[in-house]
């Protein structure tokens, strides 16, 4: 259980933001924490889709229940949050 900084690029937002998550967070939790700083601020919410997380540098999509500590991410590494059907 430790604070871990990530850089969040949320789908259709214009800026990458610092989002602190926890090493125990699953990717669904990460997506929610990222959404807080983008959705309803500069991006309208999207209904009926699931938020997924991928590594920005190579597009690797993380499983929804993968924990941050198991994703081999560097502190402040940039991740993308995007909407998907599942």
């Amino acid at each position: 259980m430790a604070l871990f900084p990530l850089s969040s690029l949320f789908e259709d937002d214009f800026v990458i933001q610092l989002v602190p998550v926890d090493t125990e967070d699953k990717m669904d939790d990460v997506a929610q924490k990222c959404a807080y700083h983008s959705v309803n601020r500069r991006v309208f919410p999207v209904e009926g889709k699931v938020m997924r997380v991928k590594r920005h540098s190579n597009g690797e999509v993380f499983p929804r229940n993968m924990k941050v500590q198991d994703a081999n991410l560097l502190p402040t590494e940039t991740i993308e949050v995007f909407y998907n059907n599942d």
Partner: protein
Amino acid sequence: MSLMKREEWYDLTRTTNWTPKYVTEDELFPEEMSGGRGIPLEKWENYDEPYKVTYPEYVETQREKDAGIFSVKAALSRSKFMDNVDPGWEATMQLHYGAVATAEYAASIAETRMARFAKAPGNRNMATFGMLDENRHGQHQLFFPHTYTERSRQWDWAWKANHTNEWAAVAGKNFFDDIMLTRDAVATSIMLTFSFETGFTNMQFLGLASDAAETGDHTFASLISSIQTDESRHAQQGGPSLKILVENGKKEEAQKMVDLSIWKAWRLFSVLTGPIMDYYTPISHRKQSFKEFMEEWIIAQFERQLLDIGLDLPWYWDEFIADIADRHHGMHLGVWYWRATAWWNPAAGVGKAERAWLEEKYPGWNDTYGKSWDVITNNLLDGKENLVSPETLPVICHTGFIPLVTPPHTKRAEGQLVDYQLEYEGRLYHFNSVVDKWVFETDPERYKGIMTAVDHFLAGHINPPDLAGALAWMGLSPGEIGKDAHDFAWIEEFRK
């Protein structure tokens, strides 16, 4: 007593090299300060500055210039201009003075270095006048805004800005430290006078003077156009340096210096000048769009000059041309959203007429940036002010010191990134373009210690680790903290 014609003695006055007898040439002109790059002293004597002036001419001309600007200032001092001007324009001036005034004084230090350490006598001669010019610019751009300090503490930032950790001031300091305060005399002449002054400052001082005159701000227009006449002279120092480097087998090195400094200058302008021209200047007073100004002053200018000198266009020129149509929109959105961290009050500039103008000048704006502003506008109409202010930091580029942005609602090309990350000696660096990353890679040892506000935050330097702590870190107190220039009045025309 009749005086000789200037042409009969001018060249004699600037032939001031001698062969040192008591010290070595290297002791007289240390490489670190002079940057002779192995080119012999005699070759540097071929340096030929296009604009020449003698000291008596300089004194007379400068005295006339100062009489001009001070008489305009005095004549208009009773006008209620500042009371009646659009708050977006007042913010423009606060931003200009804060970013520029003390940086001008720093430039006199850079000129002084050239005045002492340039191996080319013509360069030393011109830099002596340049040193006096920049001192003038620093003093005037502190004296003129001082009149307004009783209006708002934000006007005090003309002096204060570069003494703080405020992010825009830091972006400016990072740029100026890199190109003119920590470089040898030759590199300074190229990066400061050629790259920055011959193109970019024309934007801020002449383009802006044009908008100022349209707005009715004749005091400011006359001040900054007067300043720019000095610039036109001392900005000529870099061209002859480049010619000598190219003639003596140093073209690659010269090209790299030019490429690096043009890009860094561009990044600074995208966040400072772009928003001013396309968003803060009242719409009826805009002469040209930022893109149009950039195309006229920067693209055309550099394309001509670089090829004349025997250099190539920077390797990233196509990316640069694409960027000038887009980058500043994201910068403006970011500065406005994080406006509390600014010492000026950004005007949103997205009323109905403004959005139509933006669409006309930048087709597609409403389907991209406009959609972000739709959410903001709706939130304000619904009274949700908490959602139009941030609760975290943007990630900041380690070269440009500006946020990492991307056009919203835009599909990226295959392989195109927003963050070009680089791991170096165990640290992860973030760059907003391949060019920003390239700048770092030209000299990682020079740049590796850089810390953005995000790095400071994560290192525990910002306490408490929240907005209040960030504002304290940046030196922003109540009365200085930025807010919407019009107190959100612009949303009313959207209310049904």
